[in-house]
């Protein structure tokens, strides 16, 4: 068993904090895209993940993903954090408790990501029930496949920071969720504009900030993989951003701000699976390449009847898939110490990366479809057309994001008012 390394532990605690801030950042990013009557509900779907996903993860999810089990799913040994303490896991130098916290921040942000497909019409309660089932049935399973000793890991699939359980899983689950929940009531008839593009930009910036911990922490140490991942997490999104500028300019003769925010996310997603496996030079190339499929899917989606509202499939599904496959081409043993890709004479890695890029989306899509149909049997998935028109902030939460306060009358239950002590105003 390895000894605890304090430097590694300090960095992993910091990285966990960085990843934790990505969820409110995502809430801000998403809230900027929706109409002002749905801002709080949109943010609350992310905020809900902070609570619900952590609870589900601590109680059962962590064990299903990371305790010893079979090729498909982990066991029940770590249920309720049983036996998760200060001792490191095999091959690690940080307390398992820190590993648990770091992984919890991943499942939180991933569960929140899917909400982008269904904002502005899905019922809050139905989304939460779906989130619980999704974490156990999709995230924990896929995390086990690539990180917990499952069959993809056995085959040799490389996934540094979550191309499989985070990016492709959320992207293709979002696709299925949009199909099951259905489009917003005036979709295709009326244009829906982002109510505050500044929130989108600020959210994207904060996401990039957090992503330094997301990828940089996925080496679980301050060693070379972590250093390489931090470097690549700066390089790839920057190259994607510049590529996006060019694509925007060619298409519309203008460089757009919402496009720039999207590009940052796409670049961060693209490098996520590959961050610790490819050289900085290839990370720059990936930045350019990752922009293209996501850009095409965004343009294509806007012309269809598919109301995958905030383009989770394009930004996360497609960019994650690009990154996973790219590892098979550009992985370099001299940088990662593990394996070479096709460009360096090893074709078998590419084969396994392609398998992961086919199987993970298929599994996430199918399971999400089934789970949402199941939730739909138990309760309505969406609010009524009238409630959708009024807005989900008032309907679901009884609050407004931009309340004026004019005409608001205090409701005071006079009997419950506590008498003020004399002399105190």
């Amino acid at each position, binding site marked *: 068993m390895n000894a605890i390394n304090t430097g590694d532990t300090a960095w992993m605690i910091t990285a966990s904090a960085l990843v934790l801030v990505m969820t409110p950042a995502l809430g801000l990013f998403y809230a900027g895209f929706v109409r002002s009557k749905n801002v709080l509900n949109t943010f609350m779907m992310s905020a809900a993940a902070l609570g619900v996903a952590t609870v589900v993860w601590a109680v059962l999810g962590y064990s299903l993903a990371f305790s010893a089990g079979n090729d498909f799913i982990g066991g029940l040994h770590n249920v309720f954090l049983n036996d998760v303490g200060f001792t490191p896991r095999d091959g690690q130098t940080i307390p398992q408790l820190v590993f648990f916290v770091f992984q919890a921040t991943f499942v939180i942000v991933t569960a929140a990501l899917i909400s982008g497909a269904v904002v502005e019409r899905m019922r809050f309660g139905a989304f939460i029930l779906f989130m619980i089932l999704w974490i156990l049935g999709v995230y924990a399973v896929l995390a086990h496949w690539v990180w917990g000793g499952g069959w993809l890991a056995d085959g040799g699939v490389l996934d540094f920071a979550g191309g499989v359980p985070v990016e492709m899983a959320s992207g293709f689950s979002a696709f299925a969720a949009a199909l099951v929940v259905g489009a917003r009531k005036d979709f295709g008839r009326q244009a829906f504009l982002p109510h505050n593009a500044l929130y989108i930009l600020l959210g994207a910036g904060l996401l990039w900030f957090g992503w330094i911990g997301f990828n940089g922490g996925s080496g679980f140490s301050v060693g070379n993989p972590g250093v390489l991942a931090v470097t690549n997490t700066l390089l790839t999104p920057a190259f994607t951003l510049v590529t996006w500028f060019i694509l925007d300019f060619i298409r519309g003769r203008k460089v757009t701000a919402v496009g720039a925010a999207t590009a940052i996310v796409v670049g961060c997603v693209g490098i996520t699976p590959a961050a610790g496996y490819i050289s900085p030079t290839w990370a720059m190339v990936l930045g350019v390449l990752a922009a293209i499929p996501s850009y095409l899917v965004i343009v294509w989606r806007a012309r269809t009847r598919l109301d995958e509202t905030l383009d989770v499939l394009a930004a996360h599904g497609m960019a994650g898939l690009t990154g996973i496959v790219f590892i098979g081409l550009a992985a370099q043993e001299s940088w990662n110490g593990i394996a070479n890709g096709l460009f360096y004479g090893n074709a078998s890695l590419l084969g396994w990366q392609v398998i992961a890029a086919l199987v993970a989306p298929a599994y996430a899509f199918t399971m999400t479809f089934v789970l949402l149909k199941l939730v739909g049997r138990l309760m309505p998935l969406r609010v009524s057309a009238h409630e959708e028109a009024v807005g989900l902030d008032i309907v679901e939460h*009884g609050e407004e994001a931009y309340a004026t306060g004019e005409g608001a009358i205090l409701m005071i239950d006079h009997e419950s008012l506590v008498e003020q002590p004399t002399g105190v105003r």
Partner: protein
Amino acid sequence: MKLVIGIVRPEKANDVLASLYRADVRGLSISRVQGHGGETERVETYRGTTVKMGLAEKVRFEIAVSDDFVDTTVDALVEGARTGDVGDGKIFVVPLERVVRIRSGEADQAAVTPQGAAQ
């Protein structure tokens, strides 16, 4: 000439625009207003403070039309804005003394007739 003022639910504003467009009513202004018209008050809670929202958000349409066009306009407003519940809003039709189109200096009847429309 008349000024038709319609106060409608904000969530029906797009339907009203669509029905006005179908009725060939061009030239209008809208503004967001708050008002009260006997509808049930909404209750909201902020950190333990519960408030009754006495004023509801509404959208106010202002449309200046020739006398012949008043009924068409009013019908279109009603068609677009009605849900059948209290709070659907009201329409006021008031006389207009004078209208000037700023660009051309055209006055009155000519100024409320959309460009290119048959007199």
